[in-house]
Structures are given as structure tokens and as C-alpha cells.
């Protein structure tokens, strides 16, 4: 096994785990019980969707808005999956497992490898590492959430924001205009629209043709 792939996968897994603590704590603070928070990390298993889901509920949004926000936030995983299906080539029931692990981090590490073999290894190692660390961290955050005081005191809200910025960063070079517009749409509509809707407004912004892509 390629050691570089292994170390990259592990470090991405650990970093993601860090803000998994943040997710667990934020989830409990949003009023979810520990079981619900764990179901999200085990079965939804997509950071952006999970934060969007609890974010809407925390702000007093309706369940259907929370579901829609999480669902729309997860659309990109479909395109990772399309790429990964030819790289990983899972068969039968392995498709179900590969699908669950098809997220930002596993696709990014896989795409960064040069050989087809390392791309495949990178996907599985990162997917498994993130899954394990993310879920352990979520449990720690959810259980310790009430003990350790506020999420804010530990800067965990800022950690989540920084994590999203880190995922956005590589895409800014090509699409900064779109990112700027999405950011403005979300923040400008926040005071006026019900929780979760600003995210949908930002999604709609992607329909506007602008930016120097392709």
C-alpha cells in the first residue's frame, strides 16, 4: 500500500473528526437527542447536509425545510459518485457501501492521486477514516456537549465555518464570482426569510450564468 495515500487519508479523517465534535455539540444544542444526532452522522454522513439540517432546526425552521436543505446540500455527492463508480468499480452490495462513503473528502483525496490503483485506495481509506473519526467525534461532541459548556466557548462554531471555507477554497479560483454571489444571497436574505430558505436562495443563484468557467 502507498504510504502517502495512507497518511493523507488518515490526516483528512482526523481533521474531519475535529469538526465532527463540533457537529455533535451543535446538534445537541439545536435540541436533537443523542440518538438523532448519531443517526445523522451514521446514515446521512455528509457534513454540509448535516450542518444545514441542524442549522435550520436550531433557527426554528420547519422539518420539511430542514430536509429540503440537507437534500439540496447533498446533490454534489451524486456527481462524486458518478466519477467514483468508474474509478472504484464496486459490484453488487459494495455499491451501497461505496455510495455511503462518496463525500467531499473521499472524492477529493481520490482525485488527487495519479495512478488508478491509488485513486481507488485513496477513496476507500479516506472514506473509512472519515466515517470512523466523524462518528466517534460526533458521539463525543453530543455526549460532552452539555458538559463542556457552549459550542462558542471552544470556538467549534468557527471551526465548522473554517472547515466549509477549506472545502470551498480550491473551487474559488474558477468560480469566485459565483461563490461571492451565493454568499451575498445567503447573508442578505437571512434577516428576512425563514431559516433554511437563504440556503435555497443560494442554490438558485447557481442557475445564473456567470463566471469564467470552461
Amino acid at each position, binding site marked *: 500500500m502507498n504510504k502517502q495515500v495512507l497518511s493523507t487519508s488518515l490526516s483528512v479523517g482526523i481533521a474531519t473528526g475535529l469538526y465532527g465534535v463540533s457537529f455533535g455539540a451543535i446538534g445537541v444544542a439545536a435540541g436533537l437527542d443523542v440518538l*438523532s444526532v448519531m443517526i445523522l452522522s451514521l446514515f446521512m454522513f455528509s457534513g454540509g447536509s448535516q450542518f444545514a439540517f441542524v442549522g435550520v432546526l436550531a433557527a426554528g425552521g420547519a422539518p420539511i425545510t430542514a430536509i429540503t436543505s440537507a437534500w439540496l446540500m447533498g446533490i454534489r455527492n451524486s456527481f462524486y459518485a458518478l466519477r467514483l463508480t468508474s474509478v472504484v468499480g464496486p459490484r453488487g452490495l459494495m455499491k451501497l457501501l461505496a455510495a455511503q462513503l462518496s463525500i467531499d473528502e473521499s472524492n477529493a483525496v481520490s482525485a488527487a492521486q495519479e495512478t488508478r490503483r491509488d485513486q481507488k485506495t485513496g477513496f476507500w481509506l479516506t472514506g473509512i477514516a472519515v466515517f470512523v473519526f466523524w462518528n466517534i467525534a460526533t458521539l463525543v461532541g453530543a455526549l460532552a456537549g452539555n458538559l463542556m459548556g457552549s459550542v462558542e466557548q471552544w470556538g467549534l462554531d468557527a471551526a465548522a*465555518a473554517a472547515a466549509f*471555507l477549506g472545502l470551498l477554497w480550491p473551487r474559488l479560483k474558477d*468560480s469566485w464570482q459565483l461563490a461571492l454571489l451565493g454568499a451575498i444571497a445567503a447573508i442578505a436574505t437571512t434577516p428576512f426569510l425563514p431559516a433554511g430558505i437563504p440556503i435555497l436562495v443560494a442554490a438558485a443563484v447557481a442557475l445564473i450564468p456567470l463566471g469564467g468557467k470552461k
Partner: protein
Amino acid sequence: MILTVIVASLAVYSWKILGYLVPERFITDRFRDFAERVTVSLLAAMVMIQGFTVTGAVVVDARLPALLVAALLLWWRAPYILVVIAGAAVAAGLRALGF
């Protein structure tokens, strides 16, 4: 609440499994392009919502300097893990100092 959580989880999973089940030739370039773009606008929106709002209100606090430090580290090509830790540390530190 459990039901909402399960429905939401299945909804998100449906995207993931779709990519493994749909023959690639059925995915148009336009749809692929929209998915790329929607990822960018949604991530940007998440940075703003997570960074500058508190329950439906726009709030600028210690998260702003935390994000600026994170951006600086990303600019310097720092590892992802360091960016996340620095974001937490800057905000926690400033709040401990009373900001």
C-alpha cells in the same frame, strides 16, 4: 424527530446511490455543470451561515477573525487540519479574552 432525521438521511443517500446506478450517458453536461455550480454557491452560503449568523440574525463576532486566519492559512497552502484547528483556536482565544 427521529422520522424527520431518517427521511432526511434517506434523501441525502438517494443522491449518493444515484451516481452508482444511473448510466453516465444519461447525465447531460448542463446538469453536471449545474451540480458543480450549486456546490460552490452552497458551500459559500454555508460559510456565511455558519460564520456570520445566529438563529436567523446576522452577527459579526470572533468568527470573523477566525475565518480571516483560516483564509490566510489556506492561502499559504496549510493542511486542512491546521485550518480547522486554527479557526477554533482563534475564536476560542478571542472569546476567552472577552471579545
